[in-house]
């Protein structure tokens, strides 16, 4: 079959730095073509070029065999090419429906056809099994639901080419399944799909062909058939990969964090749990279970009732700073809106949380620089120019920067919400090792994750949340995917019936 | 009851010294008259622009049922037809200071003399200075009345050979006048006198001159008789030889006459122009009102 969209010898530079080096790539109708590579390899850049958001510096784009150059993304969209961004592309103050139809509103005469749009919005979302009211504002939605809206928006337009940049990074297994089904459906209709994800099992599940990028260079393109996850990972990172999860350390005896009867109005009800020194405690649950809200309640980012004790001392409620001073910090799942100042330099982001440790009255810029060196080293942040703004890092590298920022505060207890969202497999391993090392040093870690293997692989104990409360606490051999899922969905173990 | 009345008084708000004085006199005379004539009620409004003043007048008519209106038009033109409309409803109209654009609307007109204000000052300059002497002028806020004053001033010095080096707007404001005068002093080495067409501006000008240490080189004529300035004239300060009256108390005259016209049969209609006079060390005492804020 002939390629619908093709890139020939595409390079792209930002200022003097070239990040794509003559990449060839093609996409045929009715295929799912996966693009994989490490963080910063150039996947998003490539996708943006194909989607008309960025112009190639040199090289050619071919559409249906004819050379094209998209003036802007609107031109690409007119040619039937749509893209779902790695970073959200939604206006927070607008409603779901307004975002879904932005720029292509349905009209009746000169007026908007609100009813039709709401109907269609419901249909689109229902197709994704997402039951969000179309009249809600995006700013009031949880991160996964925002992602579903983002996906629904692309599904709602008749696309010949659909480019999806890590659509599942913020989704749990259940939503991922729904999404993959939809992708299969589109494929069956002849849509060409370009897909990327750091969850290689997804790639293995749906891809027809796989292209590997490493450091801006095209490494290989081959049929997915017979390309194992392990082989993919090695092709990406260019070296042997050992076991993903390190050995679990044995937690100490003393309790460092005690949460008792914590209620976050509207989200979490009466949650109690404890965390021991040197322990990695996992939090699992479905989207909307309230894990994020519970954690935000604990560190004082949300109004909450109940008590939180750190090393036996009650924490001043409502004060993130007090929590930090007690050695408790929280790493947000929403890196773009709550984690990083995208318009600011790397150092400014890195040191913001721990700024008081950088000099006395005056900030010590040398110490900051050193901290950046160390962060780049320790978290393998791939950055070609240290003076870049945080927003120009690749998504995964932003996540690493956020992780480095949090760790710089030298927490005794760290709550990490979705620690490896958008992180490549090689780095994931490093982060897991890092978490295990923290625990081994006597620090305590809470890992909130929608990736069950991650929760299972890291934690010595797992709290399962369902609909705003802690439904179960599993430890040791009890920790299995099946057990977690059943508890999360509120299915009782004995009968297998919904409670 | 039959013999109770309401008088509406609409004046510009107290944005600078002179208007402050005018506001003071309006309030003081209202307080006095309310004592004397318990049957008269007063409505006082102050406006920062012409539109607001028209609103105020509309409100007085629609909600307060005024029997007479005393107005110092913020600007002549825009107030003309609204005041005319008031008149047409049979309400007594007294206009103060800035006349209306159409003659014969008001029953009573009480005013200062802007042409006179410029002329009297100009005459002093013409008498005192001669061929080749240099002066600078600070004008007020750009308005018709400022134009009238400056034109009259220019007419009065015409032929005297006095050299007007520069004119800038000091906007009847101390700070603006201070800045402008500082710059005049940087720009011109030889200035013999300054006409600062308002005493607020004169204060700023005097300060700038003092800073430059050029008190002995030039004198300053302000205007409208601010009490601090009058006091210095009384002391014979050579830097402020004279001043020109433009009494803010004219509003009190207008309100009193209007009240009198309502309660008594005395005919008070007509025109009262309070001429601008030259204040000199000799007569200064009679223009000194220590209680007035101006």
């Amino acid at each position: 079959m002939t390629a619908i969209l093709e890139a020939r010898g595409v390079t792209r530079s930002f200022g003097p730095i070239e990040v794509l080096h003559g990449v060839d790539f093609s996409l045929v109708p009715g295929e799912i073509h996966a693009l994989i590579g490490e963080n910063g390899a150039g996947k998003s850049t490539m996708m943006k070029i194909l989607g008309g958001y960025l112009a190639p510096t040199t090289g050619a784009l071919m559409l249906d065999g004819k050379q094209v150059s998209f003036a802007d993304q609107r031109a690409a969209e007119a040619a039937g090419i749509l893209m779902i961004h790695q970073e959200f592309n939604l206006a927070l103050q607008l409603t779901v429906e307004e975002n879904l139809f932005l720029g292509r509103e349905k009209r009746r005469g000169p007026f908007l056809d609100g009813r039709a749009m709401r109907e269609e919005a419901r249909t689109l979302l229902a197709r994704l099994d997402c039951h969000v009211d179309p009249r809600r504002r995006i700013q009031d939605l949880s991160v996964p639901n925002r992602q579903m809206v983002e996906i629904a928006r692309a599904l709602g337009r008749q696309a010949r080419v659909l480019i999806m940049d890590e659509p599942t990074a913020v989704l749990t297994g259940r939503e991922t399944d729904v999404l993959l089904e939809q992708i299969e459906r589109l494929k069956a209709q002849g849509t060409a799909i370009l897909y990327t994800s750091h969850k290689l099992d997804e790639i293995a599940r749906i891809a027809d062909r796989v292209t590997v990028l490493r450091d801006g260079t095209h490494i290989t393109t081959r049929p997915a058939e017979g390309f194992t996850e392990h082989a993919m990972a090695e092709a990406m990172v260019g070296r042997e990969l050992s076991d993903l999860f390190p050995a679990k350390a044995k937690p100490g005896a003393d309790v460092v964090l005690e949460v008792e009867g914590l209620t976050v109005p509207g989200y979490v009800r009466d949650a109690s749990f404890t965390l021991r020194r040197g322990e990695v405690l996992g939090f699992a649950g479905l989207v909307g279970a309230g894990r994020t809200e519970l954690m935000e309640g604990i560190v004082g980012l949300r109004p909450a009732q109940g008590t939180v004790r750190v090393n036996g001392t009650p924490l001043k409620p409502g004060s993130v700073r007090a929590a930090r001073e007690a050695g408790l910090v929280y790493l947000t799942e929403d890196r773009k809106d709550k984690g990083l100042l995208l318009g600011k330099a790397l150092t400014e982001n890195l040191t913001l949380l721990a700024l008081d440790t950088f000099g006395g009255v005056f900030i010590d810029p040398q110490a900051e620089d050193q901290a950046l060196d160390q962060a780049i080293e320790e978290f393998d942040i791939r950055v070609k120019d240290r003076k870049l703004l945080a927003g120009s890092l690749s998504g995964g590298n932003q996540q690493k920067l956020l992780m480095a920022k949090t760790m710089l505060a030298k927490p005794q207890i760290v709550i990490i919400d979705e620690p490896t969202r958008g992180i490549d497999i090689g780095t994931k391993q490093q982060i897991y090792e890092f978490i295990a090392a923290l625990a081994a040093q006597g620090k305590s870690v809470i890992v909130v994750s929608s990736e069950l293997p991650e929760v299972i692989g890291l934690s010595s104990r797992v709290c399962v949340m369902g609909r705003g409360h802690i439904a179960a606490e599993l430890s040791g051999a009890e920790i299995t995917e099946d057990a977690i899922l059943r508890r999360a969905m509120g299915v009782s173990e004995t009968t297998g019936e919904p409670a | 009851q039959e013999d109770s009345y309401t008088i509406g008084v609409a004046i510009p708000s107290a944005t600078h010294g002179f208007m402050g004085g005018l506001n003071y006199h309006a309030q003081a005379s209202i307080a006095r008259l309310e004592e004397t004539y318990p049957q008269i009620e007063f409505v006082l409004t102050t406006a920062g622009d012409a539109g607001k003043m028209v609103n105020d007048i509309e409100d007085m008519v629609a909600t307060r049922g005024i029997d007479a209106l005393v107005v110092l038009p913020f600007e002549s033109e825009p107030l003309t037809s609204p005041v005319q409309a008031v008149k047409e409803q049979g309400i007594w109209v007294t206009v103060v200071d800035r006349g209306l654009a159409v003659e014969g609307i008001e029953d009573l007109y009480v005013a200062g003399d802007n042409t006179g204000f410029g002329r009297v000052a100009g005459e002093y300059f013409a008498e005192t200075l001669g061929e080749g002497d240099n002066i600078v002028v600070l004008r007020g806020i750009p308005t018709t009345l400022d134009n009238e004053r400056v034109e009259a001033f220019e007419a009065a010095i015409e032929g005297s050979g006095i050299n007007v080096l520069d004119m800038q707007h000091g906007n009847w404001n101390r700070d603006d006048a201070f800045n402008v005068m500082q710059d005049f002093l940087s720009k011109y080495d030889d200035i013999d006198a300054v006409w600062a067409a308002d005493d607020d501006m004169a204060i700023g000008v005097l300060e700038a001159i003092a800073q430059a240490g050029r008190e002995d080189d030039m004198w300053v004529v302000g205007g409208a008789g601010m009490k601090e300035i009058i006091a210095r004239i009384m002391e014979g300060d050579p830097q402020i030889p004279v001043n020109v009256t433009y009494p803010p108390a004219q509003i009190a005259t207008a309100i009193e006459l209007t009240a009198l016209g309502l309660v008594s049969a005395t005919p008070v209609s007509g025109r009262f122009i309070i001429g601008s006079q030259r204040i000199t060390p000799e007569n200064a005492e009679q223009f000194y009102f220590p209680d007035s804020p101006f």
Partner: protein
Amino acid sequence: MTDTTVESDATPRRGALRLQTIGPVLALIALIILGASLNSNFLGYANVTNVLARSAFIGIIAIGMTFVITGGGIDLSVGSMAAFVAGVMIMTMNALIPVLGIGVPLVAAGMAVALLTGLAAGLLNGVLIAKVGIEAFIVTLGAMGVYRSLTTWLADGGTLSLNFDARSFYRPVYYDGLLGVPWPIIVFAVVAIVGEIAMRKTAYGRHCAALGANEQVARYSAVRVDAVRMSTYVLLGGLVGLATIMYVPRLGSASGSTGTLWELEAIAAVIIGGTVLKGGFGRVWGTVIGVLILSLIDNILNLASIVSPYLNGTIQGVIVILAVVLQRQGKSAD
């Protein structure tokens, strides 16, 4: 599950929204009750029409300002632009009397000139902001100085007045109306209704909000952001022209001080009405309420001579803040 009412993404947070929405309305009602209790003529025909008619200028402008602010912009030049438009309109009409005589053609010509001048001034702002890319605050602050000084210059430091006969002919456009409703009120109402519909029921309104909420997103959603941004200023310019058409027959003149502080009043009305100053959300009907609140404060201060006139500004300031406190009740800083 149990009785827990864990909120989900399925239900909009109605309660909170409602108080915020209704806040300005409550403030307005409170003012009306206060006015009525202070003076029996307050709700009379004359006072009501007076207040509404005079609100029309700021009102019409504030509706345009709602779009500008919703789109993430600001316009400080509207007051002086109104003065300038009025000046140009008056000069043109005076100049045309020998040609057109006094009558409908003259007034029509004047109106056309006012609208065009307003649109042109708005376009200039829009181009500098949307195309050249200068901060709206600076462009319109500069423009504010420019128009005010140009008007003073045109008027030679004084006042520009419409020829007396022309004015008498034109006067009914402010003072007369339809079925006892003065024209300015009718025009204001029409602009408000059209504005409300445009904001809520058309793609244009959504695009303004999207632009104000997140320009990047709007751009990626095929919204022509530069054009939309520019259009908000042009629209506002046109509405300044329209407001001037109502204003000139009222006072028949223009000077450098015409329209002083209208910009602040208009912006205040917009914000009191619930539009977000940083853009992304606009509420036209709220703006109408905001304008009425501001007008009523002045009106009520005139109803009862309760205080020293020097303190009017204090009372106004406090009421404006209170009107918004009411709106923000229970909502924390954002």
